[in-house]
């Protein structure tokens, strides 16, 4: 997989020998090198505190790694790039804006208020797609956790990003709602051809959604295993009954358990 780094290659991201140590001395990441093909869905899974969010923050340009470097579409990463939308565990909707205004926020910041206003119909479409069109004029405190998370998805998608970075996006939802959101998300990603990186704690979720699952060890986080998920597309309820699905879940669990045991997690 070695390519001359000056040549534009087909990867959305290519991460080489990244390490990160925080100012506090916490050694969060160690020797991470991964390549994420365009249009792929990748999951990062590992024990709490192993550096998953750190890695995602590095990919989003919010954090510069202590060592190593990151390329996005073949160019050196340097600050948050326009192609990327980042979604966090909490929906983080601004409570003083209506749902619609929240969804329009990234456009407003990028193109100004006027331009954003013109895109209302697009935002409305997204809200309709995730099933909360009726709430566009409501305020976040009137939404349930699942509804807020859906609004955050719309906000993430409204700029038509080529890359989606998702940090435990559905961690706060109950299992059944979560499964539905997973399915929806997968459909959107496939439809738009975007590249997605997902951080999750749920083994079944990682398998269900991804092309590759990277298992990480406890701090300092390193990638211990890469599990290719060869489940056929499109995936859906039938996938859950697929014996290969359960098999892969067990594979990931074992990979994780090793990393878990090796770490210092209490």
């Amino acid at each position: 997989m070695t390519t001359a780094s000056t040549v534009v290659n087909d990867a959305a991201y290519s991460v080489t020998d990244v390490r990160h140590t925080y100012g506090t001395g916490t050694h969060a990441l160690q020797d991470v090198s991964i390549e994420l093909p365009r249009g792929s869905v990748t999951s990062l899974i590992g024990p709490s505190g192993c550096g998953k969010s750190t890695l995602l923050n590095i990919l989003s340009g919010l954090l510069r790694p202590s060592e190593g470097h990151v390329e996005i579409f073949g160019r050196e990463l340097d600050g948050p790039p326009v192609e990327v939308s980042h979604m966090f565990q909490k929906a983080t909707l601004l409570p003083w804006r209506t749902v619609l205004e929240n969804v329009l926020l990234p456009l407003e910041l990028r193109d100004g208020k006027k331009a954003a206003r013109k895109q209302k119909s697009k935002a409305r479409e997204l809200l309709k797609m995730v099933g909360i069109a009726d709430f566009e004029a409501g305020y976040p405190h009137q939404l349930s956790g699942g509804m807020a998370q859906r609004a955050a998805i719309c906000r993430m998608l409204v700029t038509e990003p080529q890359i989606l970075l998702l940090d435990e996006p559905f961690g706060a939802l109950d299992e059944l709602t979560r499964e539905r959101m997973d399915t929806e998300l997968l459909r959107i990603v496939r439809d738009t051809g975007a590249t997605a990186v997902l951080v999750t704690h749920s083994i079944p979720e990682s398998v269900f959604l991804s092309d590759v699952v990277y298992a990480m060890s406890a701090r300092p986080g390193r990638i211990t295993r890469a599990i290719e998920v060869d489940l056929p597309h499109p995936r859906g309820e039938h996938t859950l009954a697929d014996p290969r699905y359960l098999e892969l879940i067990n594979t990931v669990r074992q990979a994780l358990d090793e990393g878990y045991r090796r770490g210092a997690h209490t």
Partner: protein
Amino acid sequence: MVLTRSQPTQARTRRRPTEGRRGLLARMPSWAPVLISIAVFLAAWQLLVTFGGISQLVLPSPLSVAEQVVIVTQQLFVGGFLAGQLWITVQEILLGFVLAVVVGVIVGIVVGLTSFGRRGIMPLFVLLDATPKIAFAPVFIAWFGFGIASKFLMAAFMSIFPIIVSTAQGVAAVEPDELKLFQSMKASRWDIFWKLRVHRALPYLFTGLKIAVVACLTGAVAAEFIGGGIGFGEQVRVAAARIALDRVFALIFFLSLLGLALFMSVAWLEKRLTFWNVRS
């Protein structure tokens, strides 16, 4: 009793099911308890004066105060001298408050957003805020004269510190998650300020404003007290000098109403502007 059958009224006190003895009180309209306690208070006061053998010049009876309230009200409605004095004090308070808000918010933003402000200037304001600012009243009079200027500047001086401190706290107290969100969306510092910090600062600011508006009234009255010359506070002092204590109380009553009105206005504005700030 821990177990209580849930009833419609229980929703209100959901947080304390063990304290849910709901009797007469719960069925009263909400203004009734206030009126009851006012009535009890006034009755006790009247009894004290009537049977306590206290001189009217030391503690006037509520009845004679009420009489003076009526008289003052009439004078205010006629729009003569007293109405003019009240208007002067109202002007002092409003000018002082507006000045304190404008300067205080600007200074608060500068102090709250810069490291030097937080570390170098904030402690000075804490020091200044800990001075009994009323001691500056004669200085203000000497500098700014006997007109409205020295009074509204004093009112502003008395009320600006809570505004500065709360604004500085507010603009510094952004939610880390929201800041990260804005950064990930490549927001400019300008946008982060106007679309994020300002909103998050409002609840803090209003806490400061509610303290400030009362301090502003106190400042104007104190300046009139010490500086003399004009205004409703000065009328209190004149009445006190004439040993007309019932008039003193009646005038103070109007000042309280003024204070309450100002406080309520700020509280109303707070409710409107920070409607979204429901405790989660």
